[in-house]
Structure formats: structure tokens, C-alpha cells
């Protein structure tokens, strides 16, 4: 069943290809490569050993040098493909390397050692996932406590954000009162204030209220985001005023109009804001870093930062945990994006 009219550009007549169809696929495939490619690579990288991560040129899949256990040697020996003087190649295991010469053995004939110039050998590599990148942090890292903190911050902040922002947006889109433009102006003007600009006074305010080293200190300053108010207000402008009239005739209180009429009809925009809020709060770094110094209060992002030292960043752990921390937001996105569907605000009108 083709719901033709949902197209902006529609497949004209349903037969043959319109240029917009071709373009759509071009964009989707291109988008997939461009947007998703690096992300996939990121995930692959999270399975690389520190050495492989530092490697030039980077590989797409995680590789390690293959190794074989050879009789007479305790540890597995790395395997190399050796070009022999006659030009043929052979896989040998390296016992040790001294300068430019490697001492190697044929795993099949463990007894005799061959000397090979290191320029004549190439490591035999195989794909191997460094699962330790994931396992290690789970063992040494208080993962579930950080997760709980992150979830608390994200959920509370998102709920409060949605509530306060949608209330303000409702007031700013559906009421005529003096000073409306002024309020709107202030809100938008403060959109421009980067957090770093007000960091210090903000920290003073939080400290004065006794909210430093408290999760609420992380949550509260973020919930009045002008972005949300602005976005919701613009969306609400598209809801016909007649519905509000109808509700008033139905003796609905203003609160009920907000709650029963406006909110459901704003669902698509709320879903967008919810997604953003979750992503923002989940990934928030700078502000929680300032407010939280006690480990038991750390959010995941702050905890992850532990892997960033002064001179050395443990990318292998950092990437692995980044991937893990991404999973919840991906799920949230998948859940919420279903609400970004056809707005129906006009459907009740003649």
C-alpha cells in the first residue's frame, strides 16, 4: 500500500524512476558510508590493542600478529611470512630478534633455527578482538554505580526539561500577554551563552546552594535550555488555535489544555527534544566534571575520563567504554524516534 501523499517529492505515477528517487538513494547510500562508516570503524577500533590503535596506517579491522606454540618454547611465538632467497615465501615463527636479524624456526621443524633479515619478513596477521578492552574496565571500574548516576541525571534532567520547556513554550506560543516578545528575546539571547563563559559564576551559585558534589547540581542548570523552549514554541505555533478554543468551550482548565491537548499534539517535537536531552545529558562532560569530584557520584562520562592521564590516554579502554555507553542512548533514540511521525494537528479541522 503506497501512501503516496507522504512524499515531499513523490515517485511520480509509481512507474519509472523520477530523479528524486535516484537522488534519495544516492543520499541514503552516501549518508550510510559517510555517517556510519566512521562509526563502524570506531566500534572496530574499540577492539584493538593499544599497539594496534597507535598503528600507521590504521586498519579497519582489529588485527594482531598470529602466533603459534612451538615445541621447546614456553610462550607462543609470533608468525611471519618470510621471503626466502629464492623468492618463495614461507611462514616461520620468530624466536627472538637481535637488531636487524631475526632468529626464526619453522613450526613444523622446531629444532633448527634460521636467521632472517628483518626486512625479508612480514608479520602474519589475523583478526582478533581485544575483548579485554571491555572486560578489564568492568572488573576494575565501578561501572554500574556510574551507570546509575548517569541514568539518574539523564532521566531527571530530561523529564524536567520536557516539562518546564513545554510549559514555557506553551505560554510563549498560545498566549498574548505583555512582555511576551521580551521574554522570548531573553531566552533566545541566552542561547548564545556558552557554558564555559558562565562556568565560574555558575559554580559559585551551585556551591552557594550547597549543590556542589550533588547530582542535582548537575541536573538543574541544564534544564532551562533555551534550545528546547525555542524549538517547542516554534512547533506549537503550527497547532491550530481552534483546538484550544474547542477545549475552552469544553470547560478545560488551562492546565488541562496544556496537558491533554497541546502536549499530545507536540509529541513529535517533544520526542526530538527528549532525544536531544538524553544525548546531551548522557554525554555531558564539562559541567559534571566541575560539579562532581567524588567518585561515588561520577557519571559514566566523568568516570571514563579517568583513562585520560596527563601524558597518556588509554584509548583502548576509552573507546571500548565509549561504545558501551553509547548503547543506552541508541536504544532511547530507537524508542523515541517513532514519535516523530506525521503531525495530525490539522486532522480535526474541516
Amino acid at each position, binding site marked *: 500500500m503506497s501512501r503516496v501523499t*507522504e512524499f515531499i517529492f513523490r515517485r511520480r505515477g509509481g512507474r519509472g524512476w523520477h530523479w528524486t528517487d535516484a537522488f534519495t538513494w544516492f543520499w541514503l547510500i552516501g549518508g550510510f558510508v559517510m555517517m556510519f562508516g566512521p562509526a563502524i570503524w570506531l566500534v572496530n577500533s574499540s577492539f584493538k590493542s593499544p599497539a594496534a590503535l597507535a598503528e600507521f596506517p590504521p586498519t579497519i579491522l582489529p588485527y594482531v600478529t598470529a602466533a603459534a606454540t612451538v615445541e621447546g618454547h614456553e610462550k607462543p611465538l609470533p608468525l611471519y611470512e618470510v621471503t626466502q632467497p629464492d623468492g618463495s615465501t614461507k611462514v616461520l615463527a620468530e624466536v627472538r630478534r637481535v637488531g636487524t636479524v631475526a632468529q626464526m624456526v619453522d613450526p613444523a621443524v622446531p629444532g633448527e633455527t634460521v636467521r632472517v633479515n628483518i626486512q625479508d619478513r612480514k608479520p602474519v596477521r589475523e583478526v582478533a578482538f581485544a575483548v579485554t578492552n571491555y572486560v578489564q574496565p568492568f572488573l576494575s571500574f565501578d561501572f554500574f554505580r556510574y551507570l546509575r548516576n548517569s541514568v539518574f541525571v539523564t532521566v531527571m534532567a530530561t523529564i524536567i526539561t520536557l516539562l518546564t520547556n513545554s510549559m514555557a513554550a506553551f505560554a510563549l506560543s498560545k498566549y498574548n500577554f505583555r512582555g511576551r516578545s521580551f521574554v522570548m528575546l531573553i531566552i*533566545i539571547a541566552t542561547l548564545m551563552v556558552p557554558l564555559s563563559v558562565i562556568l565560574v559564576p555558575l559554580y559559585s551559585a551551585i556551591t552557594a546552594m550547597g549543590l556542589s558534589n550533588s547530582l542535582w547540581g548537575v541536573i538543574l542548570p541544564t534544564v532551562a535550555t533555551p534550545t528546547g523552549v525555542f524549538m517547542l514554541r516554534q512547533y506549537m505555533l503550527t497547532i491550530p488555535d481552534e483546538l484550544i478554543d474547542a477545549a475552552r468551550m469544553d470547560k478545560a482548565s488551562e492546565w488541562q489544555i496544556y496537558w491533554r491537548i497541546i502536549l499530545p499534539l507536540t509529541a513529535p517535537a517533544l520526542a526530538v527534544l527528549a532525544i536531544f536531552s538524553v544525548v546531551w545529558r548522557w554525554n555531558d562532560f564539562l559541567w559534571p566534571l566541575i560539579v562532581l569530584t567524588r567518585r561515588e557520584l561520577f557519571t559514566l562520562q566523568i568516570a571514563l575520563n579517568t583513562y585520560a592521564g596527563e601524558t597518556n590516554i588509554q584509548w583502548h579502554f576509552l573507546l571500548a567504554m565509549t561504545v558501551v555507553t553509547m548503547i543506552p542512548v541508541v536504544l532511547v533514540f530507537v524508542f523515541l524516534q517513532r514519535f516523530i511521525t506525521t503531525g495530525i494537528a490539522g486532522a480535526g479541522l474541516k
Partner: protein
Amino acid sequence: MTVSSPRRVLSGAGAILMAPVALVARLLDPPLSALQRVGGTNGMAAFFLLPNMAVFGIFVLFPLVINIIYSMTGGTALFLTDRTFVGAAQYQRLFDCRSYVDPKSCTDDLFWTAVWNTAGFVVVQVVFMVVVALVTALVLNRDLKARSFWRAVFFFPVLLSPVVVGLVWRWILQRQGLLNFGLYELGLTPVNWLVERNWAFAAAVGVSIWAHVGFYALILLAGLQAIPKDLYEAAEMDGTRPARVFWRITLPLLAPNLLVVLVLVLIRAVQIFDEVYVLTGGGPGTATLYLTQYIYEVGFASFLRNPGLASAASILMGAVLIVLTLFQLGIARRNEMRGKR
């Protein structure tokens, strides 16, 4: 559709989650109705604004005002009480120039370098970001199979923290990165992307588009979906070609959301920092040194902070932003007036 389809289950879960919220909302009604009787219908506007404005006042406006005072103080101390009042000295330093278009002639050459770099970045970024976001939203708005999947594809980078974004692209773009490796394999000449001025600039723009376009596309998508279907039907009956449908129906009706995107893109372009910082570090030379990095370095990163100077610079930046945004809003308002239904 079977009863136990995952979709049903999900929305069922949603309903259960919503139940307590709905209860609270219902409990709130009697007191709020009483409030409404006292304050009148329009008085409720104040009530709806209150929570947001309270948080806003404490956590945004108040610090902002403090920040203005900050910019008139000097020294390295962090807390206002420990700082010395210097009046407009910080601003004087920033504005001490023989010619504003030539940063080299300024006392604070890096500030002006950052100003002009930022201006260039903003112009290019805003145009490309809006266009790419719009095209993406239009494509995603079509009746696609596996729509959620495609949405997720374009939104995915938004989930990544800026540091990871910068890092991943650094790995791709650095001299011995994935891209050059690919070029090399294809027999093309590798380019030192992050050391050539123009390429580094393109990379900064491109990567920040990559990282954020999903965000704006999503806003636009919600807006697109809100356009009543019957208008498209009417347009179709009017024999409208797709391009014209876009210009005459879609775009004007998308205007409120487009405005959101435009304002946000502009603001965020002016504030660009994290991912570019990780990607290019402001280089090559100072080619991608943007205002926020300047402010960050002056105010936080160097061992001898100069928070007063950073505040002054940030306030100048904010002032410019406000002017730009008001300009945008002014245009939008005129259109809105004409478009009032």
C-alpha cells in the same frame, strides 16, 4: 498486526511509564484550576513560564550578569571577591588595533585572528549545515522502507561525544590516516589534510557538519511531518512539480522550524569548539583557531589564567551573536506577520 508485536509492546511500555505522570498531572489540576480562577486565563501564562524562568534566572541570567562584572576585573583569582576592578582595561586590550581586519596590527593578535576565522567558519558552516540538514530531512521524510534505520544512520554521530568525533576524524584525516591510505591504494596522491590551511578549514566545517547534521535534520523532520497532508494533495491536484512543491509549499510551511535550525546553527557555529579543537587544535598555524578556543586558552587552559580577558572576549562574542540572531528573528517576524493564519 498481532497483539504481541514489538511495537505494541513498546507503546504499552510507554503507556505504563506515562501512567504515574498522568496521575500527577490529574492531581495537579484542582489547585491549578483554582489558581486560574484567581489569576484569569491569561494569568496562567505566568504560571507556565515560571518554572523555566526561575531555573533560567538562577542558572543562566545571574551568572551571565556576574560574568559581565567579571570582564571588568583583572588578576588570576577565580572568585569575584578576590579580583581587582580594572574597568574597561580588558576591552581596551582586545580593541587595541591599528586595523581590525589585520590581526597582526593588534595587541591581541590571536583574538582578532580568532574573530575573523570564526566569521569565515560561521558563514560557510551555516550555509552548508542548513542545506545538508534540509536535504537529509527531505530524504528521510519520504516514504522509505526501514525509515527508522535510515534516521538512525544520520543521527548516529550526534550520539558521539565531541572528543570522540574529533579523534575519529583525526585518525581518518591525519597524514597516515585512513583516507590517505585509501587514496594511496587507489593510486592517488595523498594530501596532508590537517596541515594544508584550506583543507584543514574544510575538515573543520565538514566534521562539525558530520557531527551535528543529524540534530538539525531531526528538528526539520518533525517540522516536515507536521505539514498537513491535504495541502500536498491540493498541490498535486494543482499539477505542481516537485521542485515547486518544495519551494512554495514545503519551505514556507517549514519556516518556523527552519528558523529554529538557522538560529541554532548560527549560534553553535560561533561557539564551535570541542570537535575542531581535538581535530585540528586550531591549526595549521592559527588557521582554525576559533573564538571559543581562544577564550578557553586564555581563561582556563594556560597555567596563568586571565579570566577577566576571557570574560570580556566572551561577552563581545555574545553581543555579536545577539545582534545576528535578532536580525534573523526580525526577518522571521516579518514573514510570520505575513504568514499569520
